[in-house]
């Protein structure tokens, strides 16, 4: 255990549950305290969970293409809720169609996400990144 808490869930009207379970398993194995709010989660669900559990990061999943719409305003709401320095990651199929991911990543960074992941990236990459971002030693 590294005593860092991460809230995970699938945002919006998205019911893709398999990836969510895999992320839960992988993060737990990596020593994180995982708070999984499951599928069909609103921005408010993520924020409330992060406040009560004093989370260090929020991992947002989206697989159905509407991720960009669903994620708009999340960073601002986190700031408003007192989660000013919380780390936000997003991954899955976060936009529709074959777009240049560099541009997509730019757009999500503008939305306030610390990192955004292209389709097909493994959760191990996310784990390495979060260890780096939270200064957790190997």
């Amino acid at each position, binding site marked *: 255990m590294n005593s860092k*808490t991460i809230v995970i869930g699938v945002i919006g*009207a998205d*019911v893709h549950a398999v990836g969510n379970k895999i992320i839960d398993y992988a993060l737990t194995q990596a020593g994180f305290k995982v708070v999984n709010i499951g599928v*069909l989660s609103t921005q408010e669900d993520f924020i409330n969970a992060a406040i*009560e*559990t*004093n989370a260090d990061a929020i991992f947002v999943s989206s697989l159905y*293409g509407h991720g960009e719409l669903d994620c708009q305003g999340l960073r601002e709401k986190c700031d408003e809720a007192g989660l000013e320095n919380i780390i936000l990651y997003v991954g899955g199929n976060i936009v529709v169609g074959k777009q240049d991911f560099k541009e997509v990543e730019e757009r999500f960074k503008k939305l306030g996400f610390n990192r955004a992941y292209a389709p097909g990236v493994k959760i191990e990459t996310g784990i390495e990144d979060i260890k780096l971002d939270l200064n957790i030693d190997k």
Partner: protein
Amino acid sequence: MVHNAYLLIDFGSTYTKLTLVDIENEEIVATSKAITTVESNIMIGFEESFAMLNYDKSKYQIIKKLACSSAAGGLKMVTIGLVPELTAEAAKRAALGAGARVLKTYSYEISSAEVQEINNMSVDILLLSGGTNGGNKKTIIANAEIIAKNFKNIPIIVAGNKCANDQIKVIFDKAKLNYIMTENVMPTLNEINVIPVREKIREVFMQNIIKSKGMDVAENFIDDILMPTPAAVLKASEVLSRGTDKVDGIGDIIVVDIGGATTDVHSIAEGNPTKPGINLKGLQEPIAKRTVEGDLGMRYSALALLEASGEKLISTYYPYEEIVEACKYRHDFINFVPETNNDIAIDEVLAKICTKLAMNRHVGYVEIAYTPIGDVYNQYGKDLLEVKYLIGTGGVIIHSDNPKDILLEGKFSSQEPTLLKPKIPHICVDKYYILSAMGLLAYDLPDKAFRIMKKYIIDKLED
């Protein structure tokens, strides 16, 4: 032959009600009621009620006297949590389950204006929660500091993030507060843990509150004042539904209790989805759940009921103008007893509205989410569609000639298909008004309490 009997007492807000139970034959021997006299000496009303208790004194020997109380305004609580939908809501549910009147629920750090508000409310117990175990402790500690500074005379129960307890202890000990600590009311996200808090509330009620409400004079005569009246009703419901170590319960039940000021609904059920493919959302519900509607009542709250229901709903039952007049009258004369056919009919209409709205607010609901893969169903709260028994209690139901019509308003309706109310419940009436008494008896003799309730409430089904 002399039979052993229990005398069960309910010091209600209006009436002091007595129930004498033959515990050998498991029979109700006699009941009586007289006006509660908490302002002068609570024993005057008790003596008066006892004098009216009509039983053969050579046949019964009273071996124990137990009481519950909602006199002097009931058990008044304020609860504090972190996020409104999470620990603040969990703390509120725990307090309601302990039979408290929750005056207000606060979230996040309490402000000086809120401190002022709490000071003006005459609070009996303050419940402090916030944070999951290992989660946020900043807010609960900040609130502990505010409490230590401002509320030196209110008993406090702490049921928050366990990692904050040591620091809170230092703060409260330094301020010499009267407090106890118990398990977190929400140990992990969305998981509710109400039973330890409920038990602590009862302990504080027994140790502190009875005295402060001028009820300690009763303690010389009565063995124990065990709990607030609503907690006794919930306890009775739990025993009837879930049974005891020796007997099986009757299964899931709902109890509707319509009073002058409030309508209480108790459900004993897990409330999991009864249909496949439904996602459960939101904070978990306690198996024994109590809700209190402060704006739905027959007398004191008649005007609030008018506002809560509105002209459209009322007109489906009765001419609106007449109900308006009747509600004004009932609000001004809270001891009014209907005698004419008109007044009886109007009381029935009000009771129907209380049942309908209180049930609508108590039960869970399903919400449809439209997604790219089709409609998806989310359930919030309890699914009570398959609950087998709907039991009515409270003066208006017990004295009505048509209690069934009143209670059927709490049934599932195809007009509101998303509200998960029971579809085909058996309707039962607590005709002898024994539920709170049985909650008390259940503390000592649960098997007997179960069998008496089954005999007097369930086996006398009207249909």
